[in-house]
């Protein structure tokens, strides 16, 4: 009777959350990420004792912290990956506002930890790098704007997202943090490319990037020294790169053996920027190849899954997230093998670092949420003769 008067109680449609998640999530990519973070812990066991010794902690201090952060990151990733794309978008908009404010207040409230660039908030027990969290939420918000501009009578989302991108890149360059700035710029560029950027414009942008690099080279001494170091054919064996090259060569196919590596004692950034050199030295080419394959499969699988996607927002956001993830890994490893000039960039899930780990967890969670299998209306297309 009640139902007849007030209408049916809205019944739970569809299946419960967990089984549905397990059925639709990209299990291969998920496994790859889990394996990567296990490898990260394993390498932390090798790479961080020297750092702990330098800072006067017990040998596995940083491994324990990495494990704790890793657990948090995995939890964040799983929770995020269960969300619906709409929820991802809404939370990202909120997160974007938060990250934007945090980034803007950085010059006043942040610390530089004596490294010359104000990038962190010191929270006592840990430090927080807002730019790490800015990347995924900026990607999602930009994707939303770009997608909305593809609607009939939609807002000028391309222009807006470009404005946001410019402001954020500007703030990151002021810190200065050219690495994160170029990642943000790259993420936006890739999304704009997939959203249908005219090819002429893309070439123009490539020109602008070259010009910007030239200007940075001539105006920033810090930057110029790194480029010179890269272009110099004579590799100075006492630089970070020299040590890394030597470590990779020492490792050979099967590595020198667990705990036998030497490079971690001479490289100050062995646990972050040059962790791949530690991996190559102790475990050999085998492990490096596995790591590369894991990153490649996450990125390429995600992109292929997104090819089927019909919703422009999901397609763009997924593309942006997958690409910055992949490019970050590429740059980190490219530097170690001297394909790219030295640039401090962490290896997602493998390098030590709380902010970077949790932010990577959140952004991979978003990516997994966006690449979940969902009905794409293929049947409708067939019926209507579209395709």
């Amino acid at each position, binding site marked *: 009777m009640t139902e007849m008067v007030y209408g049916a109680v809205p019944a739970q449609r569809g299946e419960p959350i967990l089984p549905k998640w397990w059925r639709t999530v990209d299990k291969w990519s998920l496994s790859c990420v889990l394996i990567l973070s296990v490898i990260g812990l394993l390498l932390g066991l090798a790479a961080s004792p020297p750092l702990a010794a330098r800072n006067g902690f017990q040998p596995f201090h940083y491994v324990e912290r990495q494990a704790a952060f890793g657990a948090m990151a995995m939890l964040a990733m799983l929770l995020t990956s269960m969300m619906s794309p709409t929820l991802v978008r809404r939370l990202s908009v909120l997160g974007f506002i938060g990250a934007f404010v945090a980034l803007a207040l950085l010059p006043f409230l942040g610390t530089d930890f004596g490294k010359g660039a104000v990038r962190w908030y010191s929270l006592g027990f840990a430090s927080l790098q807002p730019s790490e969290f800015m990347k995924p939420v900026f990607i999602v918000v930009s994707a939303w704007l770009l997608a909305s501009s*593809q*609607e*009939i009578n939609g807002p000028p989302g391309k222009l807006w997202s470009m404005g946001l991108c410019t402001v954020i890149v500007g703030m990151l360059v002021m810190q200065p943090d050219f690495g994160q700035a170029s990642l943000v710029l790259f993420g936006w560029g*890739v999304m704009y*490319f*997939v*959203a*249908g950027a005219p090819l002429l414009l893309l070439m123009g942008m490539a020109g602008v990037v070259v010009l910007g690099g030239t200007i940075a080279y001539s105006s920033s*001494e810090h930057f110029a*020294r790194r480029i010179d*170091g890269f272009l110099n*054919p*004579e590799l*100075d064996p*006492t*630089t970070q790169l020299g040590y890394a*090259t030597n470590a*990779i*060569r020492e*490792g*050979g*196919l099967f590595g020198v053996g667990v705990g036998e590596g030497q490079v971690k004692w001479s490289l100050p950034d062995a646990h972050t920027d040059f962790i791949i050199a530690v991996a*190559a030295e102790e475990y*050999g*080419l085998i492990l*490096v*190849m596995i790591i*590369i*394959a894991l*990153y*490649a499969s996450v*990125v*390429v699988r995600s*992109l*292929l899954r*997104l*090819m089927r996607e*019909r919703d*422009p927002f999901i*397609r763009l956001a997924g*593309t942006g997230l997958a*690409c910055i993830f*992949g490019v970050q890994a*590429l740059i980190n*490893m*490219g530097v170690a*093998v*001297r*394909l790219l000039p030295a640039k401090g960039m962490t290896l997602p899930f493998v390098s030590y670092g709380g902010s970077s780990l949790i932010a990577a967890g959140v952004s991979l969670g978003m990516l997994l949420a966006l690449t979940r299998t969902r009905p794409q209306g293929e049947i409708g297309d067939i019926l209507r003769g*579209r395709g």
Partner: protein
Amino acid sequence: MIRTPLRPLARILPAREKGENPDAIERENIRRRHAEMQDRARVRAEGRLLVLGLFFLCAFVVVGGRMALMSTSEPAEPVASAPGAAIAMQRADIVDREGRILATNFETHSLYAQPPQMVDPIAAAQGLKQIFPDLDEARMIKDFTGKRKFVWIKKRISPEQQQAVHDLGDPGLLFGPREMRLYPNGRLAAHVLGGAGFGKEGVNAAEVIGVAGIEKQFDDYLRDPANGSTPLTLSLDLTVQAASEQVLAGGMRLMNAKGASSILMDVHTGEVLSVVSLPDFDPNDRPRPLLTGDPSDSPLFNRAVQGVYELGSTFKIFAAAQALDLGLVSPETIIDTSGPMKVGGYPIGEFHGKNYGKLSVKDVIVHSSNRGTGRIALEIGSERQKAFLGALGMFDPTPFEIVEARGAQPLIPKRWTDLSTVTISYGHGLSASPMHLAAAYATIANGGHYVSPTVLKRKGPQYGPRVMSAEAAKEARQMLRAVVTEGTASFGDVEGYSVGGKTGTADKPKPQGGYYDNKVIATFASMFPTNDPKYVLILTLDEPQIHALKEDRRTAGWTAVPVAAEMIRRVAPLLGLRPDVDPQRRAAITLTSSN
């Protein structure tokens, strides 16, 4: 192409006539257009995603491939680009003005091993350890007994070492010829010479390329086989350079300075006879450039040519000389230097808060009055001041022919206000290298012509455009002489050489803005002999501090001036300058006892 209209009027109008709702048709039309648009976008995106996916796949494969190449590579036996091409003795020598060798080539050998050819690798490794104690024996045994076909052992060995390796008698130990650049004088003139390193390297030969200093600036000239027999002749004088370095090193230690530089320049030709920057290095064994921290702390940094500093009161003579040249003042014109004086809202003070009252222009320079110079500069005006300093070469890097000089771009204010005019008149707010100062003082010394400083030997005077009248230059020189006889540089009087000059003590700027109150750059810019100057000497000390007469003293008069005086005392005879002996004095050494 047939354009479909945005509104399907052909269907709406009949529908309206039939009384149906045309909105439904329009909505349907919009939905269709939307779906078509989405389809187009999707097809395009599919293609582009595929491109992205392929790009990432390729990039990961490239990184992986490179990693595999690196990890499986044994350093292969490098083959010289031209097999057996003897490139020894190609690079031209560098000599000083008298033809004494500063840089030459030396034939030496590299040592490498081919483990498959070795008879007894263990004994060879032990023998090598005896000859080269710095080698790692365990490592060598591992290399020699492993699968490697080629191992570099030493890039450069001496003939004695080569003989010792020969005596080991192992056929797997081989030598490759190496030409190396040798600087027989060690640290002498290190910053000018710079250094050389190996470019392309093979077993049979290695290319020698200049990496800094004159070696890099004239790399093409030095490598050109056509110049093989004609050495590059510099303006430096080896003996003067050695004496300068010795005096400066001693002075730097005595004055507790962390760095020092000196430039000795011929005022007519612009030839630099000695240029020293301390701390220095040995170009035979060039230290690694610093990757972190301030590059100016590295011994590689050339303070005389590369570093730009606020040079303090040494600039005051430029304001005085220009005012004389313009006829605004004569040396006896009285200037009111009493305080307080405010420019653009900033008070202009004197050293230690002194107040000199009314001074003649000459005394303004002698007592080094900031307010007096400032008043003269305001009289001149900023436009004329700018033009004058520009003509003295203060706005561009010096044309000094070593690569580092190009980096010494003077720092000048973006907006040249009245305050800038005043502060620059006493050497603050404009940073220039000591080499700039040397060229500017040479202009006063030679009677008003700009000369560009050079490290190459010249024949005869090389006057540039006239900057001031000979008369003004002469009066300015008399003031500089008075600074030594009765002013701040009284320790600088070297008997017989009538030294004239101006001291400058500038507070060092903090990197985060503002100035240190206990760190200074002390400069003495001098010329000798004042009545007909032949040379200028610029000497700076970085953060000097001595304890004298119960006080910590940092001013140039106490630090840079005595060192400069000692340097003049040492080098003037080497330069062939005859001391101007006072004939009256001779009476003092006539016989005093007679009976």
